[in-house]
């Protein structure tokens, strides 16, 4: 995909996020909108996956450790054709495949059930370790959030990724700076994240703008450093693309009403 095509893809995913959360009347638009470029670039430019054969044992894997960003995940998978886009309307409804948080048993393209923070990256470590064990060239991508970095398990996962030299693992770190109760700084400051991530053994790539699709694509394309897991620490904007949602704590877990949906879609049409 060209940069222009990727931008269009990202805009479509943003509209999906707005529509899904508005239809459901609940969900997490803020942290979904911040993650769009990271997830879209991973799926569209790096991952070897086939929407028609979602269980191919030789596919690359993706784990959304920050599972509440499911609207973004479903948007990406739906746009790629893993399931019919009609499913978007049933997001969070009884018997829907698109559960509030990703369910591996229900959604083609989802590789792990996540949402309980801290566990997804560990699961991704298990996949990467399993791939190494089986001498497969599978690559594993995991996305975590910054609030999630308050979970001790995330650091257990990071420690084990370095210990087992998982250079087939890429952690996409969506650093939008906000969580439900406020900013990371107010709730529980994360300190010097780049230093911590380097100290945990990552080949660290820091992106000043994690919503710059070209920059994300370039970072993902860099060759792996042998013996080291990679982390892309992406500074992103929560609510990115919808002016009244941008950098607003209140839009972490609140759905747009009809008026807000119309306003948001109008802004995203121009993208």
């Amino acid at each position, binding site marked *: 995909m060209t940069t222009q095509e990727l931008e269009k893809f990202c805009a479509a995913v943003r509209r999906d996020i707005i529509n899904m959360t508005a239809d459901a009347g609940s969900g997490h638009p803020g942290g979904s909108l911040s993650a769009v470029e990271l997830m879209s670039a991973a799926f569209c430019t790096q991952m070897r996956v086939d929407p028609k054969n979602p269980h191919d*044992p030789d596919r690359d*894997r993706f*784990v959304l450790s920050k599972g509440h960003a499911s609207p973004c995940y479903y948007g990406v998978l739906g746009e790629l054709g893993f399931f019919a886009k009609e499913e978007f309307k049933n997001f969070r409804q009884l018997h829907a495949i698109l559960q509030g948080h990703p*369910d*591996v*048993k229900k959604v083609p393209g989802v*590789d*792990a*059930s996540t*949402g*309980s923070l*801290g*566990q997804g990256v*560990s*699961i*991704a*470590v*298990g*996949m*990467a*370790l*399993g*791939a190494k*064990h*089986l001498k*497969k060239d*599978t690559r594993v991508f995991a996305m975590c959030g910054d609030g999630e970095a308050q979970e*001790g*398990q995330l650091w*257990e*996962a990071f*420690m*084990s990724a370095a*210990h*087992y030299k998982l250079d087939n693992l890429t952690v996409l770190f969506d650093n939008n700076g906000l969580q439900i109760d406020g900013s990371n700084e107010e709730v529980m400051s994360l300190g010097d994240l780049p230093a911590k991530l380097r100290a945990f053994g990552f080949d660290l790539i820091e992106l000043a703008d994690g919503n710059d699709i070209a920059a994300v694509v370039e970072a993902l394309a860099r060759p792996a450093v042998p013996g080291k897991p990679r982390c892309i620490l992406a500074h992103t904007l929560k609510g990115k693309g919808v002016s009244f949602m941008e950098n607003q704590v209140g839009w972490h877990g609140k759905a747009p009403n009809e008026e807000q949906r119309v306003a948001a879609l109008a802004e995203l049409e121009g993208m």
Partner: protein
Amino acid sequence: MAEKIATRAAYGEALIELGAQNDKVVVLDADLANATQTAKFQKAYPDRHYNMGIAESNLVSVSAGMSTMGLIPFCSTFAMFGAGRAYEQVRNSVAYPHFNVKLCMTHAGVSVGEDGGSHQAIEDLALMRVIPGMTVIVPADAKEAKKAVFALAELEGPAYLRLARLASPVFEEDYPFEIGKANVMREGPDAAIFTCGLMVSECLEAAKLLEADGIRVSVINVHTIKPIDADCVTEYAQKCGKVITVEEHSVIGGLGDAVADVLMGKVACKFKKLGVNDRFGQSGKAEDVLREYRLTAGQIAEDIKAAL
């Protein structure tokens, strides 16, 4: 019943044999490989054993991830940490997606002994039993533990295997083992004693003591707590009219409650649960601790007699 072998030791031996037959089997531990006995597998297959360090949450979720690659992870640590500390990882990383992870946890129950109450899991069966789709097995002796390991490798889906630290009697008879099928170890009309794990041999001894007093009881080894053998439980409860459950676990949520769930509203019978009565464990020699909690043959016989 001369020889004594701990079920954890049998687990370690079984893994080596299983590993030779099934190259999908990998073993994960959390810095307790000598205690859980997975070190034996590590020695035999160093490139198939992964030590995750003292990080049980990660241990369980990493096992979940490995299972998605087509491997069969046997995940081991102490029951306190595997079923307790990492409970939510077992629930959400492993069981919710119904991944094929075998949670084989040792040092369950008060027979841990000297390490004390902080390390004696008396609630692990309750915690595991309540999870949808989880198979829960408590082998009675070393032979059964070995059979259970092989059976679990064939079972698709999450399972919990409860293993003991203490060396316990090995039955001379070679009983068949089928997941979900209880073994009747002794027949008697006066009461049905449903038990599991190390308490099976204690109950068989208790049955002998009772017989000397003219009381003849059936002893049923309910090695699979979930899915429980409802037919067998119902049959013996009806036949005997008096039911006593005996377990090295809290009387809340374990075997006793699993048996009660089968019988409630279905079979009218006298019912008594023997086990750890809503207390924590404590330090002491395993035999002394078991005696403190009235989990030895003589005490069990007395308590059965009192309940009849």
